[in-house]
């Protein structure tokens, strides 16, 4: 279980003897490893981000490829036929009573799954053009390991492509807001006086806006027909602009207390410049705190992107993010009849949960002497 630092039993266990002898970061790593759930969260996230890097290679189809022969197609069945890993062709019929597509697996028509096939063109890591894909079936058929949506788009391909936006947007937004928040917070706490007063008034004003409505109105002001990169950038900026105030306040509090510490006074007495004191004493001391707040802010930012896209104000089709996919899963019909439409929600929950667990573990670890 992830627990607060104060809750850990004060066992005088194995390593305590050398606490004073090893560097602080090693103590942190040691403490972090103790909370198994946080370590688990970290591994899950690493796997997800690695998959994201290879998403185009792993996705068999372009995320917007339509195929009406596979509308609401169920996840493909996999079997070994003649010693080859295969899926099967589907026969599509219309249930005229309930107006649904029915699919029957045609076991006489196995489709061997081919590996390292040529498919749509993409740029690996955004640089190297390639057509290579991990798997696929023969032309004219489709393999949908996780089913297909109402237009016959492959859900797995969309999940993979969507991760490129969903996993980066919140992350980048938080990184920017952490940078703004740290700079402003440090300036406010270190210089004090009228600078501090002015900055605090601005923060107070920004925090008086209810954040969700402010978020919605800013998103509604975005140009509708901008290319996806521009929209991505703007939504990132919105997340950053709304998010930095809380962090700035916390950093200010920390900096103010470190500013009055003896070692800072010593540095001032020894003739240390502002720059030296800030970068050598104040920032390194606040850093762990900043990282904790940042890590815990990422899941909230990912949630914001999903909410915006769900409401049709965030990422817009034809681009795809997990929020865009959740939008397709908002009717009871979609969920009860085609449960694989809920997969983006599941992936989202796992991601957010992992970030929370990771942040929780880091928070406990940054104070290794407790």
């Amino acid at each position, binding site marked *: 279980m*992830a627990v607060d630092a104060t809750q850990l039993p004060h066992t005088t266990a194995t390593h305590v003897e050398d606490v004073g002898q090893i560097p602080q970061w090693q103590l942190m790593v040691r403490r972090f490893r103790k909370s198994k759930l946080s370590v688990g969260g970290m591994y899950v996230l690493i796997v997800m981000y690695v998959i994201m890097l290879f998403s185009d290679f792993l996705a068999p189809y372009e995320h917007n490829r339509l195929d009406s022969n596979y509308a609401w197609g169920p996840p493909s069945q996999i079997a070994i036929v003649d010693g080859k890993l295969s899926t099967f062709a589907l026969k599509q019929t219309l249930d005229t009573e309930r107006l649904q597509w029915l699919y029957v697996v045609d076991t006489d028509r196995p489709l061997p799954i081919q590996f390292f096939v040529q498919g749509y063109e993409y740029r690996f890591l955004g640089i190297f053009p390639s057509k290579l894909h991990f798997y696929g079936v023969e032309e004219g058929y489709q393999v949908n390991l996780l089913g297909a949506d109402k237009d016959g788009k492959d859900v797995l391909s969309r999940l993979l492509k969507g991760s490129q936006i969903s996993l980066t947007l919140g992350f980048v937004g938080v990184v920017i807001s952490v940078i703004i928040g740290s700079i402003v917070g440090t300036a406010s706490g270190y210089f004090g006086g009228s600078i501090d007063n002015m900055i605090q008034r601005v923060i107070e004003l920004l925090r008086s806006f209810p954040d969700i409505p402010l978020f919605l109105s800013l998103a509604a002001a975005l140009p509708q027909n901008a290319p996806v990169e521009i929209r991505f950038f703007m939504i990132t900026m919105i997340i950053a602009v709304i998010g930095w105030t809380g962090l700035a306040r916390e950093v200010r509090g920390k900096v103010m207390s470190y500013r009055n510490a003896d070692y800072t006074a010593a540095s001032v007495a020894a003739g240390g410049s502002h720059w030296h004191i800030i970068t050598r004493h104040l920032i390194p001391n606040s850093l762990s705190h900043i990282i904790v707040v940042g890590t815990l802010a990422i899941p909230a930012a990912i949630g914001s992107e999903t909410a915006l896209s769900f409401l049709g104000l965030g990422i817009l089709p034809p681009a795809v993010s997990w929020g865009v996919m959740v939008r397709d899963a908002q009717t009871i019909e979609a969920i009860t009849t085609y449960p694989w439409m809920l997969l983006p929600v599941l992936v989202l929950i796992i991601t957010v949960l992992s970030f929370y667990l990771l942040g929780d573990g880091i928070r406990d670890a940054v104070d290794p002497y407790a």
Partner: protein
Amino acid sequence: MLNYIARRLINMIVLLVAISFIGFFIIQLPPGSFLDVELQRLRSLGGDVSRDQIKALELRYGINDPFLVKYWKWVERSSRGDFGTSYMTDQSVGERIWGRLSVSLGLSLFALLFTWLISIPIGVYSATHRYTIPDYVVTLIQFIGLAVPGFLLALILLIFATRYFNQQVGGINSSEFMDQPMSVAKFIDMVNHIWIAVVVLAFGATAGLTRVMRANLLDVLNMQYIQTARAKGLDEAVVIWKHAVRNAIHPLVMSLGTLLPALIVGETLVAQVLSLPTIGPMYLDALRAEDMYLAGTILVMLSGLLLIGNLLADLLLAWVDPRVRLE
């Protein structure tokens, strides 16, 4: 104390003026205007609008006024209690908002009550029974509560309610009660409808508060005065509830100021899924239709609620904790 409240109130008014200016600016940012949206709708219905008609409409709604003129018109009218006429429905903005806001407030108060009634006892229990199986279960549920988006929970509960309770859901009343005056039957029907919304709204907040309550109580339980209280033979229940909880509850009281407005605005997505007639979906529609008077008024009102909520929380804190009063 009165001095303090007066200063806070003046500060609030200054903030609200600044908020209204910035908020109005953001809301009128999107290019085009309500009129463009409306004209498009008329044209798509097949009707054509003549140049003169467009001119007349533009004049009537003051579409081409510069920003400051629009803003001034809005503020000046609002200060007289006239929030303008919504472009969308030609209804008075004040009337529309109050109808919706009362539903939102009612729902949020219920959710708040629910949150507190559940998170305090559970938080206390899991702190006093640390590292037991129920504590682990509670911790796990807390994390799930943080990670599962509210609208999804709403969707899942909707499915269960429809499938297993054979219940008509969505909205706050069944269709047969829609236009009837309030009665016992209507009230029961309403409760049947809104419990999902209340549970969903409360779930996320409950998860967070339980966690905070548990962590705080654990800190307090390590204090020496708790040991003293036990040593002098007090009943454990008295030690916990009278001595410990009272000192652990500060952050909960402080969170009250942000929690209520957060619940009111946080229901936007949930309300969308459950088609509840609350303020969130209305704000969203107003933004989409570029109905800036309606959207602007809602934004300022919600900010006002947030500020009032914070003030009330501070006063409540001063009431709970004598030490705060001294400062």
